[in-house]
């Protein structure tokens, strides 16, 4: 599969936007400038970027509590995301949702979700709507290894398989659900194996290799769009940061995994890997990549400025938006 230069640049930009955004969010939350629970996805950028690069604008995604990356990769605006996470009126949800509930319908972002496993039936239903209406839009559904132990995971895969729905189930397997290592609570070591329980293809991919993710995703999307049904893609990856920003203050550093383990994954950074690949294969020169970084820094600065200057919602707005 030959990936166009535009696609490569798009994926790199996605990864940089995620990395920059998440790093900033971590710092802001640590400094208590942001309320609530914040989960960041540093180290997992390639799966979000690779999957979303295989989608078009009318395709849809569902996401999780750790959702910023997916939303950004699907085209989410950093300024409105940042403002939402600040709880400001200028945010995507007018401050009503926050980090775990960002939605952008115009981009097919059906939402982050605070409930583990809740996105799977929603994604399945989104694909069902496309099928009933006779449209060929595809829905990609992000979730974690932990979520694959929820019943909704299996109920969704079964339904999607029986009805041949155009949905891609993307398991970002980072080896942990909160502070619990996957191997202590999950009966299998590869989530992809579970696809067989529902007669759909299950593919394992190096989740830190954006090119591989993109290739596998493109095939799954083509299959789905052609009416051939769902695919389960397992992206093996790792989160560099804690489950939730601030956890080390409660649990201590390295309470449930070793420094060595974390460091070994930092060596597999998906961004550096991509940069190296570009250099080795002479695909994109370093200057062009650097320009993306610069642009992203600027975008992020503007997003923060936007968020800070946006107003907090007025108390009177609390009763708006319950019913249509």
């Amino acid at each position, binding site marked *: 599969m030959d990936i166009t230069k535009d696609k490569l640049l798009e994926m790199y930009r996605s990864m940089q936007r995620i990395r920059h955004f998440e790093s900033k969010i971590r710092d802001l939350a640590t400094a208590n400038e942001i309320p609530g629970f914040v989960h960041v996805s540093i180290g997992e950028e390639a799966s979000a970027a690779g999957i979303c690069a295989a989608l078009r604008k009318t395709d849809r995604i*569902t996401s999780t509590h750790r959702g910023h990356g997916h939303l950004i990769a699907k085209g989410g605006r950093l300024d409105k995301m940042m403002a939402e996470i600040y709880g400001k009126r200028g945010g995507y949800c007018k401050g009503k949702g926050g980090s775990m509930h960002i*939605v952008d319908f115009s981009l097919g972002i059906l939402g982050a979700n605070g409930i583990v496993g809740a996105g799977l039936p929603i994604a399945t*239903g989104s694909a069902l709507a496309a099928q009933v209406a006779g449209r060929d839009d595809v829905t990609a559904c992000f979730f974690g290894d932990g979520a694959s132990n929820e019943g909704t995971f299996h109920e969704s895969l*079964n339904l999607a398989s029986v009805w041949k729905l155009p949905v891609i189930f993307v398991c970002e397997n980072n080896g942990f659900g909160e502070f619990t290592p996957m191997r202590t609570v999950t009966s299998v070591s590869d989530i992809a194996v579970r696809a067989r329980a529902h007669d759909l293809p299950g593919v394992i991919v190096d989740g830190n290799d954006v090119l591989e993710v993109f290739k596998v995703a493109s095939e799954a999307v083509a299959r789905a769009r052609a009416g051939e049904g769902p695919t389960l893609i397992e992206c093996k990856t790792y989160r560099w940061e804690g489950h939730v920003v601030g956890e080390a203050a409660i649990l201590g550093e390295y309470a449930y995994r070793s420094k060595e383990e974390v460091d070994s994954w930092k060596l597999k950074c998906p961004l550096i890997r991509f940069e190296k690949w570009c250099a080795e294969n002479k695909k994109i020169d370093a200057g062009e990549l650097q320009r993306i970084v610069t642009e992203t820094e600027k975008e992020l600065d503007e997003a923060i400025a936007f968020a800070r200057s946006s107003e907090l919602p007025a108390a009177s707005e609390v009763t708006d938006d319950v019913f*249509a």
Partner: protein
Amino acid sequence: MPQTNFIQAINQALSEEMRRDPNTFLMGEDVVLAAFGATKGLIDKFGPSRVRNTPISEAGFVGAAVGAAMAGARPICEVEFASFFYCAFDQVCNQAAKLRYMSGGQASLPITFRAVYGAMGGAAAQHSETVYAQFLSVPGLKLVVPSSPSDMKGLLKSAIRDDNPVIVFEHGALGRLREEIPEGDHLVPLGKAAIKRAGDNVTVIAIGAMVPKALRVADKLVKESISVEVIDPRTLIPLDETALLESVEKTNRVVIADEGHLRGGAAADIAALIAEQGFDHLDAPIKRVTALDVPIPFSPPLEKAAIPGEDRIEAAIRDLMGR
């Protein structure tokens, strides 16, 4: 005009609305063959893409209804017995009800849920729940509990056209009740109570299957010159507070009759409203006639003892009237 029963009323409403709006589709367990009859024949009219038997996976398919609504469809989702909502509570309470608000109003979720509730003769505890009380405290849902075929048809049609998640409850023992239904596009708006019988001495606010019971009691007591007003909220959310309070203002006495439980039930919810906003019009305590606070038992004499009968409505009225 022909007499129509509940099941036929539902079937007409579904058929008319599915014809009217090609974005609608129906799904649920065994909707094709229609265990309760309400969805019978829809498969022939609308085909297998719009009438779908689901696996026995309530969380999965209720959640799929939510996703389909977010993606522009207008699902009608049947959950057989209302007790099975328990298997999909997250999808209803934490997803369907909240996604619009959490999105700052971006999402609209036009979903109609249908389910059979109530004690229907030996269905026992796990199939006889009056589940709506547990949705009352979930902002974002609308709750419809029709007491007659005509209301069922008109309310169900309104529910399907509504842009919010609406749950329409059907009492399992009312299936054979028959009445004439107005011809044409018969719509009953959500949020309008119905005075099922006007009266002066006591207001009985009756929900669902309690309405016919209350009417029979009113019929009986009128012979003793006790004039009972029977009012049916029809929808619990939105609730026609004005109509209920006006009735109490007129009669100064109120009985609330509901098949749900006493603790935390819909009767408590309405009693609290009146105790707060209608207090000055009350001449007597607010009486509730509800199921006993036990799981609904299987054996017929026990079931009868557990759920509120006409005798208990009558006793409550007499108590308030001092007779």
